[in-house]
């Protein structure tokens, strides 16, 4: 589904953010991307979501080479993904309901169908009662969940979340992880970046650990590792 082959990414005027990364993510997987700040987690996710293009190597999404996509095909590629950005990127000039409507408008879904789906997405993250509220009046965790609702309303087959539990306390973090878990269970591929292993559940999970742009481990984290990394039982 997602294949990286010797992928290198260098931003103009900086060092390589990703060096020679090869990986393969199958449909339906639940993958964590971990690493220190500046390791290149966000860069990896942006490459997957066709927001950035590699400077070396190839990125294949559903067997399509991102670098070779025509620019008018890129938007349609991006619509396969539900994106939760590290900085939310919520629109603060409109209420929660309208924030969630945005991806539907882009997809050409309007009217009652769109309203129904938006409410369903808000309901899934427990924010239906806040549909008329402005995002700025929401707590950090609620804003994060609003971002999730916006990411899932288009029914993407791949959900990509960049630090979704960033500044949240353990209870909120667990709350959000369980939402991802629910999507994973219905077959959605879930990729979550996090700066440490906090929030990775006790069950077996695949973890891609990045250190200074290099992919270090590409294996399954064991329940034993988890208890060392975090004190939060989830």
């Amino acid at each position, binding site marked *: 589904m997602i294949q990286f082959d010797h992928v290198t990414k260098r931003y103009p005027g900086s060092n390589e953010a990703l060096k020679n990364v090869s990986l393969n993510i199958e449909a339906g997987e639940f993958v964590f991307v971990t690493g220190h700040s500046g390791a290149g987690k966000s860069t990896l996710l942006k490459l997957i979501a066709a927001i950035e293009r590699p400077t070396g190597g190839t990125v294949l999404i559903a067997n399509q080479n991102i670098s070779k996509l025509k620019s008018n095909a890129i938007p349609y590629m991006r619509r396969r993904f539900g994106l939760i950005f590290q900085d939310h990127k919520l629109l603060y000039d409109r209420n929660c309901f309208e924030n969630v409507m945005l991806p539907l408008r882009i997809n050409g879904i*309007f009217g009652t169908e769109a309203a129904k789906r938006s409410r369903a997405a808000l309901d899934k993250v427990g924010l239906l009662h806040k549909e008329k509220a402005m995002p700025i009046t929401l707590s950090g965790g609620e804003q994060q969940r609003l971002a999730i609702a916006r990411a899932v309303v288009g029914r993407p087959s791949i959900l990509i979340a960049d630090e979704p539990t960033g500044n949240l306390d353990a209870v909120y973090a667990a709350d959000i992880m369980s939402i991802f878990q629910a999507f994973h269970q219905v077959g959605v591929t879930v990729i979550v970046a996090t700066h440490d292993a906090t929030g990775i559940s006790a069950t077996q999970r695949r973890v891609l650990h990045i250190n200074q742009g290099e992919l270090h481990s590409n294996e399954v984290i064991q329940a034993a590792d988890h208890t060392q990394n975090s004190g939060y039982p989830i």
Partner: protein
Amino acid sequence: MNHWLNHHAQAFKLVLTRMRQNTLSSLLISLVIGVAMCIPALFYVGVDNLSTLTHHMQNDNEISLFLKLDVSSENIEQIEQLLSKHPNIQKHRLVTKEEAWQQLQAKSDTNPAIQELSKNPLPDAFFIQANKVEPEALDSLRLEMQAIEGVDQAVFNADWTKRLAVLLALGEKIIYFVAALLAIALLVIIGNTVRMQILTQKDEIEVSKLIGATNSFIRMPFLYAGVLYGAFGALFAIVMMASIIMIFNHSVAQLSDLYSSDFRLTIFDSKLFLSMTGIAIFIGWLGSYIAVNRAISAMKID
């Protein structure tokens, strides 16, 4: 098709809501467009009306043939015959030098300069009414008359209308230049207005691009905004023009009554109004198209 229509309808609705939220600034920009269009259009109406007016005058165009002073009476008769046979001459009238002299003296018995003339300085003359109105046909007729034996000078009586027509043609050219300059100004004004709107919607555009919006999706509401500014601007221009012309017509009526003419400025020139609307809409569309494309490429999300 339905999907596509829906997209447009949604964009249109979005723009109307945004405009309602900024009624004052939307009105102001439309007003600016209206004024900028009004100026060349008014001049155009003036020139256009004067052109038709001078055209009317040329209809009763006359050519005067002044004969040589020493022309013989047989020669005059020959010319008379020639004129009466000529297919392009409707009628002609001979005024002999004696008749002219009498008329002049009768008219100017207070003018000592003429009283002092002892000898008749006037030539015999034919006054010709052509049955053609086109300037070219008249011109060739005049040349033909000029060539006749015994004719000293063949002149148009309505020479000044020709000069006016030339001036009007010049005026028309100037109007086109002014209109072109104003069109550029409008492009800048509309482009800038749309650019400001884009700045306020920057976040939305950025997020939309990141989650898969096409450029045309992003452009659409701004293009509609530009088109609507143009349309409202044209509406303003037309209303302003119609009122200004109506005020003018009041004075024009008084003036043309003096000349017992029923000349009035035309108020509803549907061709002019249609082209004004079309041009305004096109300028609105182009201005916002340029602005939004520059904004999208400046955001560098691709």
